[in-house]
């Protein structure tokens, strides 16, 4: 099993600790992980902005970088979704098809491929889980409240088994945080308001550590928390599962 680690561009540049935690976690779980140095980005920022055609070179570079691997694991539901869903505009060579099939979000990889249901970590904190929309509704990693009242999903399943953890019951379990790529600046007012409302929900219900599967949502929410000096610590799910403490 040849496994490659894909660290999305903004994680590489701004959240190296999330990349490190992902790598260490996979190593602890007994996975031999390669990290191709020429990787950059999945191309989503341009595509979501209406410049999909400009992204083709980035898509091809991504496929070229990762085609030799059986699995591509990344700590981002959003990038995973983009590669699976939107790499349909380049020629569907065997390499492209393979890459689209092989890419896994980290938690999905742990649960579906490695078939690991429990990670032995103590995390005695009250944790609020922010479901990223691309992970939840894009990859169907969690139930959507539009469809069922049962709140369950891949990430919460793993989290619930950590020792000492308490999960926050939110008023709105799966409302978008308002990051949305370039939406966060193009629609600054609504984006900020959406984030502030998410934070208020977490504060109201006692979250001490805010986590999720997508750093992009967390970056936006952390930016608001810091501006408000609010007492919530932000950690990516990889950091928690790797045994890091807040």
């Amino acid at each position: 099993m040849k496994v490659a680690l894909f660290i999305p561009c903004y994680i590489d540049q701004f959240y190296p600790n999330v990349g490190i935690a992902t790598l260490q976690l996979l190593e602890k779980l007994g996975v031999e992980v390669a990290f191709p140095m020429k990787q950059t980005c999945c191309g989503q920022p341009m595509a979501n902005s209406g410049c999909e055609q400009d992204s083709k070179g980035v898509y091809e570079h991504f496929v070229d970088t990762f085609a030799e691997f059986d699995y591509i694991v990344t700590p981002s539901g959003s990038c995973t979704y983009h590669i699976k869903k939107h790499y349909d505009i380049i020629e569907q060579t065997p390499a492209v098809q393979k890459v689209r099939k092989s890419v896994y979000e980290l938690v999905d990889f742990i649960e579906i491929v490695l078939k690991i249901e429990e990670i032995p970590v103590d995390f005695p904190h009250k944790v609020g889980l922010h479901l990223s929309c691309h992970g939840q509704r894009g990859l169907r990693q969690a139930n959507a409240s539009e469809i069922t009242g049962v709140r369950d999903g891949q990430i919460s399943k793993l989290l619930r088994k950590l020792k000492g953890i308490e999960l926050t019951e939110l008023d709105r379990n799966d409302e978008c945080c308002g990051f949305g790529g370039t939406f966060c600046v193009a629609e600054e007012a609504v984006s900020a308001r959406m984030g502030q409302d998410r934070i208020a929900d977490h504060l109201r219900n006692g979250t001490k550590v805010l986590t999720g599967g997508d750093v992009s949502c967390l970056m936006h929410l952390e930016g608001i928390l810091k501006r408000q000096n609010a007492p919530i610590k932000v950690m990516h799910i990889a950091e928690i599962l790797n045994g890091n403490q807040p």
Partner: protein
Amino acid sequence: MNHQDHPTLAANFNKDAERTTWHDETLWFVRQKRDRAIYPIPEFQDLRTLASEIKDHTLSNLDNYLIEFEQNAIKNGVKVHWAADAAEHNQIVLDIIRNSCKVEGRNTRMVKSKSMLTEECHLNAFLQKNNIDVVDTDLGERIIQFRDEPPSHIVMPAIHLKKEDVGETFHEHLGTTKGEKDPQILTEAARQHLREKFVAADVALTGVNFAIAETGSFVVCTNEGNADLGVNLAKVHIASMGIEKMIPKLHHLSVYTRLLARSATGQPITTYTSHFTKPAEGKEMHIVIVDNGRTQQLGRADFRNSLKCIRCGACMNTCPVYRRSGGHSYDFTVPGPIGAILSPNIDLHKYSSLPFASTLCGSCSDVCPVKIDIHVQLYKWRQIVGQQNELPATKKWGMKGLAKVLSMPKVYNIGGKLARGALRVLPHGLTHNQSMNPWAKARELPDAPKQSFKEWYEENR
């Protein structure tokens, strides 16, 4: 007023933070009511699939079903008219009124129940210019008609207004006591006022929720019974319908009536589900079938299934952007996510900001009772906006530059290092300058680390 883009209008809306909270919570309440209505129904997801498939079939055979509908309606004694666009629709309605509702010494009086199509065609303004008195009889529509505002929601047209606002409007137009805000008193004032209008009407216009090819009849759903009061009292009934309202058979109807009110307001069914088949003795019934851009949308493979929409408004209630920007921020007859995929078909340039008024969270697609892939279509419209050169120049060139950088690893590595270095040494006041960096208005930037992950990896593995 000049057209303003969504970010501008949404930012204006958000200036009143308290009102934004109220608007968000009001619509979220409706979304939750909808949830409570659908969770106990085990077959709800199957119903959505079935409704979607019936519409797929109908749209694929729309020409045949429209003809079948017309033939059956004519057999029933209904007069059928075809309008290619809004102007034709309005002229047809005016001609019907002039031919069938001749009155002396006063204006002809029309009562109208809620019809998004006539909003789309701007019928009221046209008729009023031609000396027809038009009264909207849906309570929400009447409120905004008094205020000379467009609807902000397709099911709850005055949802942007608080009871205090309605009290103010009724004080001005109906003479209720100044400061009166009791909903029951205000509604009673509207009832008395509207009764007079119903009794005095010469012609009643309704929309159409569903048109049934097999029977040539059509169905109008209301909660207030205002459509029924109007058409049963007036001599002439005109029903305006878009071509996409068609369903093949009567037994398909229940699939949609089970979905419509639950999705819209969380009711099991609308209070009134009225079937109209033929005119009563001595009366006239007309149907105006309107295209107005719909066949063009039908011809767009990626967007045709937006025509499945049954106008329940659930995508608005669920949309976190709509709830925090208000219906008027879309500046289009149909606001919210569905409006954002319908409007570019009408005028791509004018509505080029609407496909971007979304985080692509996908809640709209999951809530839609006919399973329109709304967020997928938003993404696809974005690409067309980009290709047709309708993106702001900074975004267009910024994205081209970014794409270049991200396809060249060395340039990306060096660029990232320089950017992080700059962020670390530049003063906070500059990196968080709000006129240059919209991110920083409400948010801090992430700390720029010394090492990227790649740099760490090279050192440590």
